[in-house]
């Protein structure tokens, strides 16, 4: 099998994300999880180390060029375009991958080539009923769904999610977990999450970060059994 995914080395953090899998990154607050996601996605420049996507070095590419290569991301604090309709949010993401955006004359809002894939992405996350509403009117959980639709619309190779379940209620959490589970087919997912139940239910591989260092990495069972992880992290939570 051809191996492709992201490889990252920072402060001796070295992880590989395989296609079709969910790779969870857990660790106590301040462990560097968000920094790691920022470095992979290109919001923060790495001082050393490399990021590879499908075997190609993307370490020195800016955020938008990494996105073009197939790296999509959600943010810890939900990040949508509040004034745009839900549909337009996703249609813009489609536009990023579908031809040039230096088209000045035809109205974009009625372009079927943009709207059809956008509707499909919305249907995928179960948000098609809200397509016409302004994004700012969505509930917190719905905004999370919208972020996923935006990410999916770009047909990414790797999806980086920073605490997608944060702030979601129990019902919303169940829905989002089921959704994430189904997304595995489309792309590799790097998942930073505090909800341990969700992490152990979803992840194929779990990497544990503490003080910026990788202290363990393996399947859910191996992580559950790891004594070092227990004391460093799970022990506190239990």
């Amino acid at each position, binding site marked *: 099998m051809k191996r492709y995914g992201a490889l990252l080395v920072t402060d001796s953090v070295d992880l590989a994300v395989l296609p079709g899998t969910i790779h969870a990154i857990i660790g106590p607050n301040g462990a560097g999880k968000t920094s790691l996601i920022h470095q992979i996605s290109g*919001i923060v420049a790495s001082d050393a180390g490399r990021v590879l996507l499908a075997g190609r070095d993307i370490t020195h590419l800016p955020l*938008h060029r990494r996105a073009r290569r197939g790296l999509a*991301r959600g943010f810890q604090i939900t990040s949508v375009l509040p004034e745009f309709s839900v549909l337009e949010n996703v249609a*813009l993401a489609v536009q*990023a991958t579908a031809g040039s*955006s230096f088209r000045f004359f035809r*109205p974009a809002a009625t372009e079927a080539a943009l709207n059809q894939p956008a509707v499909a992405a919305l249907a995928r996350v179960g948000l098609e009923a809200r397509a016409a509403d302004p994004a700012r009117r969505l509930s917190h959980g719905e905004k999370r769904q919208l972020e996923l639709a*935006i990410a999916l619309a770009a047909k990414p190779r790797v999806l980086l999610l920073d605490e997608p379940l944060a702030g979601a209620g129990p019902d919303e959490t169940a829905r989002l977990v089921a959704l994430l589970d189904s997304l595995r087919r489309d792309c590799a997912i790097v998942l930073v999450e505090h909800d341990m139940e969700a992490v152990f239910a979803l992840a194929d591989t779990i990497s544990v970060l503490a003080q910026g260092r990788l202290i363990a990495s393996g399947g859910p069972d191996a992580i559950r059994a790891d004594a070092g992880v227990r004391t460093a992290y799970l022990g506190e939570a239990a």
Partner: protein
Amino acid sequence: MNRLVPLLAFAALAAVPFIPFGREGGYVLLLVSRVMVFALAAISLDLLLGGGGMVSFGHAAYLAIGAYAVAILDANDVSEAWAVLAAALGAAALFAAGTGAVALRTRGVNFIMITLAFAQMVYFAAGSLAAYGGDDGYSLIARTELFGWPVLKGRGFYATAFVLLLAGYLLCRMLVASRFGRVLRAIRQNRQRVQAMGFNPFTVQLTAMVIAGMLCAVAGVLLANLSEFASPAYATWQRSGDLLIMVILGGAGSLHGALLGAAFVVLLEEALGRLTEHWRLIFGPLLVLSVLYFRGGLAGIGAKRD
């Protein structure tokens, strides 16, 4: 509201030359011409401010660039419209691309200050053009003509300004609704999200600055012809401030708001200027009140709120 108000506004502008104002007729036409020239400049600024969230405090520089394109060619006995337009648009595009590339490396207050600084450079550069009147400005020998046809004289000026304003307005509307405009509007709302989608905000915003600059230079060409004069004062920061006031007062982002704002500012300036030379003392508080009570600007009055 978004269709009705601009339609009414342009209908009113089209009707003005046919209303019998008697002896005041010439004066009214001149005044409304002035409104239209500044409306074109303000609409181009709204493309940046309302469209892209770029608070350019140096937009008047393009008025001066357009005006001096007329003046410098005039001094060399050229008054053909195509030559004047080519010079004005070319110079504006170069200036916008050069200064924009620097200014767009910053945001917020720094962007405001850098655009202001570049406009001041234009102001001082224009003042140092000794061959073209220096600080005193330059009086045109002849107005710009189209194939020898005096399109910018008398009623011709009004008609030409009207057509250019309408074309500029429709162009901006189309731009804002296009793929390009959609990215521009998205950058204003959430820059990082747009980057994460795979767009480069820099090139999109720079393109907008070039387009807006060129459009404002057209207004500069008209302004020079209207007053038969090109002055470094066209590029002053007060003038840039006036343009910002027009856009904000009219309601940024609506485009036709810039037209209403320009009409309001130019007409109020004229009316208050008759009352007292300290008209800004009255204008200031009016501005504060309107910003406090009409959040969406003139274009937002009567519009639905949610």
